[in-house]
């Protein structure tokens, strides 16, 4: 157990703007292996939600199957969760979102879940621009079925089993960009300073926000020869320009660090501040794709915010659904009644 929750609430524990403590965002005790990267992601989600001041019960957590997909039990214990079937989290999240567009949806998946069995659903939820945060906890292997190579394993990377992987890796960020995702980022479970603001920005984005989090599997894929192990990642990571996320309510009072030169205003008024980066323009899809490729060619892993479209139109907007959640509509809103039916009968004679 690597994520132990203190048993009592400290009387001086801090509350956020909505009056919640960090504990209000925690979940059940993790049953993952000690040191598993996935637990750090869970804790990053807790931090992000706490700092953003979201209402825990207004978030729904949805996942597929895998060690990663188990984690929604370990954060946001006051939220409803749905641990669905392997690779199909996107469709369940889509239906849930169609039913009620007013809640926040966090989807948790693994590299097996999203890049293999669920590659189709991953692609389609991205192109529909569903308003959700989609996090892949990417360990380059199938943790829960004991360490087989996954489709994101790099060529030549060696897991505990010892055979180098011969197949090309799928880069989920590159795919998401190509398929129309409107927020794309990559991070590392070991870099909370980068991860937490990314999750916060993703949660504020109106549309499909994808974060590929490299999240080492300490049990099966943390060898020095694995490109998804802690050692390799720490040695090869490179970040895009540093990012600062400023939520809407603190905008006026925020004290900007000098050097931030680019400002992106998100849908609800929150702002992302970015240092001027030498090459990457985060609002240009092509620039993001090139940056990923260039780093990849050099054997480096580019992390940070890669792309955001602040004017994105989410699925509900495209579908022109009413403002009110569909699930809250009743007979009066939905049932056309007997008179309309009689008219229809008339047209069928």
């Amino acid at each position, binding site marked *: 157990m690597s994520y132990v929750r203190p048993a009592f609430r400290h009387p001086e524990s801090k509350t956020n703007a909505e009056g919640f403590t960090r504990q209000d965002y925690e979940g059940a005790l993790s049953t993952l292996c000690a040191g598993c990267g996935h637990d750090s992601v869970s804790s990053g989600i807790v931090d992000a939600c706490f700092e953003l001041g979201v209402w825990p*019960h207004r978030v729904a957590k*949805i996942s597929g199957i895998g060690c990663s997909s188990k984690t929604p039990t370990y954060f946001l214990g006051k939220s409803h969760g749905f641990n669905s079937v392997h690779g199909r989290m996107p*469709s369940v999240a*889509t239906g849930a979102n*169609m039913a009620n567009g007013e809640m926040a949806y966090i989807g948790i998946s693994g590299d097996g879940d999203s890049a293999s069995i669920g590659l189709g*659903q991953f692609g389609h939820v991205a192109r529909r621009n569903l308003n959700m945060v989609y996090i892949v906890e990417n360990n380059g292997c199938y943790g829960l079925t004991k360490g087989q190579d996954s489709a994101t394993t790099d060529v030549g990377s060696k897991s505990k089993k010892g055979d180098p992987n011969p197949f090309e890796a799928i880069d989920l960020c590159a795919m998401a960009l190509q398929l129309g995702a409107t927020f794309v980022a990559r991070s590392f479970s070991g870099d909370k300073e980068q991860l937490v603001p990314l999750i916060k920005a993703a949660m504020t984005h109106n549309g499909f926000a994808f974060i590929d989090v490299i999240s080492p599997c300490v049990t099966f894929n943390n060898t020095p020869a694995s490109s998804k192990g802690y050692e390799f990642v720490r040695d090869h990571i490179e970040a895009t320009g540093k990012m600062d996320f400023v939520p809407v309510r603190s905008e006026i009072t925020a004290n900007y660090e000098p050097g931030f030169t680019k400002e992106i205003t998100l849908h609800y008024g929150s702002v992302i501040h970015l240092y001027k980066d030498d090459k990457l323009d985060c609002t240009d899809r092509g620039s993001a794709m090139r940056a990923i490729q260039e780093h990849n060619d050099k054997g480096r892993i580019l992390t940070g915010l890669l792309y955001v479209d602040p004017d994105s139109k989410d*699925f509900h907007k495209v579908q022109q659904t009413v403002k009110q959640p569909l699930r809250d509509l009743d007979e009066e809103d939905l049932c056309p009644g007997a008179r309309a039916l009689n008219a*229809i009968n008339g047209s069928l004679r």
Partner: protein
Amino acid sequence: MKRIESVNEFVIRFANVNGTGSASANAMFAKSIFRMGIPVSPKNIFPSNIQGLPTWYEVRVSEKGYLGRRGGVDIAVSVNPQSMAQDIGDLNPGGYFIYDNTKPLDLRLHRDDVHLIGLPLTDICREEYTESRQRQLFKNVIYVGALAALIDIEFSVLKELVDEQFKGKEKLVASNIHALELGYQYALKNFECPIGVRLERRDAVGDKIIMEGNDALALGAVYGGATVVAWYPLTPSTSVVESFEKYAKRLRIDPGSGDRRYCVAQAEDELAAIGMVIGAGWNGARSFTASSGPGLSLMAEFLGLAYFAEVPAVLFDIQRAGPSTGMPTRTQQSDILAAAYASHGDTKHVLLIPSDPKECFEMSADSFDLADRLQTPVIVMSDLDLGMNDNMCDPLVWDEEREYDRGKVLSKEELENMSERYGRYLDVDGDGICYRTLPGTHPDKGAFFTRGTSRNEYAVYTEFGEAYVRNMERLAAKFETAKTLMPKPEIRRAKKPTSDGIIYYGSSNSASLEALDMLEADGLHLNAMRLRAFPFAQEVVDFIDQHERIVVIDQNRDAQMRKLLIIECEVDPKKLLSYTHYDGMPMTALGAASHIAKLFGSSNVTPLRKKKAGEKA
């Protein structure tokens, strides 16, 4: 030569090439008979192809009100040289063969026991029209005009239909009526009209309507409060969703904003479609998908999740001929077992089985109540015959007082006032149905984790065998509760007491009813039961218990409903005889009657002239 003589009782079959615009002319023909107050039942027989292959349109006209296929053809209208040999061959002796005689009929096709009626359709069109598309389209209208003279369709009714169809497009109205006249006048001048088979206005239709089952399912979903729809195109289910959108665009628009009170997603496949439905159901919206056999197979894993995690979902299965792609545009009832037991592990699903559009409408609306009440998938089992053909039925009714049954969903207030610990899978009422909560309802009460893994009463993951078994037993108890909520079977007693009976379901209804009358006329009295749902209500078990021999009618090879009855009602298999018909065409009354008579060892029933492929005892 014998001449079939009949007023208002006959079968006419049109042979066309698909993609030539015959569908609308043929539909106008059927509708005109309906408007003359005579019951009519048209069936489209079409290939899995967009253009160029043979299609047929078989119309049963029956003043007595028989709406199933009878068997045999009295009039053939042949406008497709490709299928001419078959079309003339299928004609009953004394029947009428109407064909395009622009080219003389191939001598090898001549039959001296049928009446030939040649219409120079191609010649007339060549003279009248310059464009080839017009020549092709009006050919169809011209033969309808000729039929008006040959079998006494009231010309004013045809005019009225043309007016309605092309409302506001005066040019089209005029040109269509002109084409009808061309055919009408030609027939009048060249033949003795009417021929032996003809129509006479009646008042046998009353306030009945005529519509496709898929259209009715869609309308039922609009009335039943469905808001989330996810689907993947698949014949013959596609028109359910298309029709839902058609009605929703009219009836589900917010008057203030013009926004939609529904959301339709064309999914990437059927797996995603059912996943979306389950996500929406979990989040409290009424949601459905429509598909057919291949889609049902893909949905299997998810259906098991919805059963085990107890999430409402509605699936319309418009069955077609399988296995695999089978005969994708032909009808069958061959998903019964696959649907009843869809998924791995111990799973069972609620099935509703409509037999006409009115029942499609009602069962569609009811399916959402049942799914919410039972917190489980409900599968409505229609088929291509019912779904894609115009079927006559009583008008649709909606009770203004009706309220949606949203089942056991705890509100914010109920959660607030709850003193005991909330348990998602606690059987508080002893009916196997537990209380659920919707995401986002209450700040700190009622949240739980939905999963396909085993859990205890408080939705906490467990691999403790006893807790797993308790949960499975409760799910079985819930299925017992379901039995009491299912629509009852429809039971018909014979005029004379008998210990023999038949069981049928779905689109077999009309032909079965007619077969029963035929058998009765021949002295074979049978009680009858039409199944309307699974799990089987007690009445189903009682009916079987009350009889010594029962023939179960299935439109599939393996007698799937018979097997389901044997498994679920624990009856002696010897007691349940089987008549199966599965050649892809809807079964016929004559075929059913002769085979049932044989099964009961009754010799005085007129045997069927010719055994059709796929019909066996």
